[in-house]
């Protein structure tokens, strides 16, 4: 956790996270009627950075519970962001690697927090440039509201009403050495608005 964060509430603990991901994995298997063959027409796409780890966990749960291998891709949307003109310096471009053909495939885009919807918009554009998927669905751990675009999530872990100054921090063991979801008030709120970029993992 950022030392400057004022923690207002813990929304999910590690057990909640595990149960929630199991439920969402279940929903994916049912919704897309996944079986051994459907791995050919389905794909998970994790958005950098935490979406990638979440997608990997969903993939592992589906393998463990149903013994189905689903392909997993990694998507970085930096090249597609719309706040380019607002930024003083450019963020680091991370890896995009989707080894399967997206044409005709049902894709599920995975991210940690849904906020303004602008990151999802970038992700949709990025996927469209890679081919013509049969459909794209969106899965998020937390929907915190305050949408600026007509976008909604198809699979939601938890819907959390928030105030604009607050932030939702999703922390994953693999990346952050702690696990859970917290609602925080960042120290010096408004700082993020000054340089025009929201902190990573919060939209």
């Amino acid at each position, binding site marked *: 956790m950022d030392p400057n964060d004022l923690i207002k509430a813990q929304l999910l603990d590690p057990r909640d996270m595990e149960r929630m991901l199991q439920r969402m994995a279940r929903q994916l298997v049912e919704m897309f009627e996944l079986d051994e063959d459907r791995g050919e027409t389905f794909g998970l796409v994790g958005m950098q950075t935490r979406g990638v780890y979440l997608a990997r966990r969903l993939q592992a749960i589906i393998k463990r519970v149903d013994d189905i291998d689903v392909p997993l891709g990694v998507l970085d949307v930096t090249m597609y962001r719309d706040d380019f003109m607002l930024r003083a310096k450019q963020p680091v471009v991370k890896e995009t690697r989707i080894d399967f053909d997206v044409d005709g495939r049902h894709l599920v885009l995975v991210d940690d927090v849904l906020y303004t919807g602008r990151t999802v918009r970038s992700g949709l554009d990025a996927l469209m440039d*890679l081919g013509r998927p049969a459909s794209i669905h969106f899965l998020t751990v937390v929907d915190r509201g305050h949408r600026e675009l007509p976008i909604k999530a198809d699979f939601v872990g938890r819907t959390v009403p928030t105030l604009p100054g607050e932030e939702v921090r999703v922390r994953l063991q693999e990346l952050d050495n702690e696990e859970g979801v917290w609602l925080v008030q960042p120290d010096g709120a408004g700082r993020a608005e000054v340089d025009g970029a929201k902190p990573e993992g919060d939209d």
Partner: protein
Amino acid sequence: MPLQELRHRHLLGLKTYGADEIALILHTAREFREVLDRPIRRVPTLRGVTVVNLFFEPSTRTRISFELAEKRLSADTVNFSASGSSVSKGETLKDTAQNIEAMKIDMVVVRHSSPGAPHFLTQCVDAAIINAGDGAHEHPTQALLDMLTITDHCGSLEGLNVSIIGDILHSRVVRSNIHGLLAMGANVTICGPNPLLPLHLDGMSPNGQVRVTHRLEEALEGADVAMALRIQMERQGRNLFPSTREYHEQYGIKLEHMNRYPDLKVMHPGPVNRGVELASEVVDHERAVILNQVTNGVAVRMAVLYLLSGRGGSE
């Protein structure tokens, strides 16, 4: 923790760029290279950004490479070449630049025969300046694409032995490569006939890290990469060496060298004079990575354009 952003606002040369900044450019270039393999080889990253390619000196591949990089990033581009422009009517560099800037542009890619011309431009316009070659001074994007190609084939640059062979004296590519390679921890050897070597290397090799030799064998022995430089035929009238045939005999890389050094990779900034710097069979050899350099050139230029396109910055 790796660097998150460049400290520079312009790319005038690699002399002042740190290893962390070069590493960031190479990392970004690898990610952009993925775009070049897609069915739709274009991303909207620089939409709304206007780039002027200001070429006061003839150039084909560098200009095309920059233009492609700009188009792949969806930037708007304007090309300006000295012939047939106001320069031939006697307009100064400063006036040309300020006139172009008055048309509202964001970035300038400049090639000029005078060393320091890009630096001069930073003082008279507000746009980000990228040096595409200034006289015999620097050609930073060429050195960056060379380094990207080396890391593709040899892994890390740290401790690698790179030999640069040919017309060292007139080469801006060498100057940029020496700064960059030394910063990244590689060992550099330069090799060529005496009239084509600079009298002193002080600016490039402050602590004497660059080894100098007149013998090709010494340069190739133990080298991981041999970078041959183009003999500039237009300078042939000045009798810097007896003939291109004799040059090839003494300094040309031939098939026998490829056989004797089975791990050696051969590079060339192009355009190649077949049978002069490199024997024709060497140009087509599987360990000649010249075309990889060209592909990497577009990716590296995309990375530089992207990283310098922010509105703020120091320097």
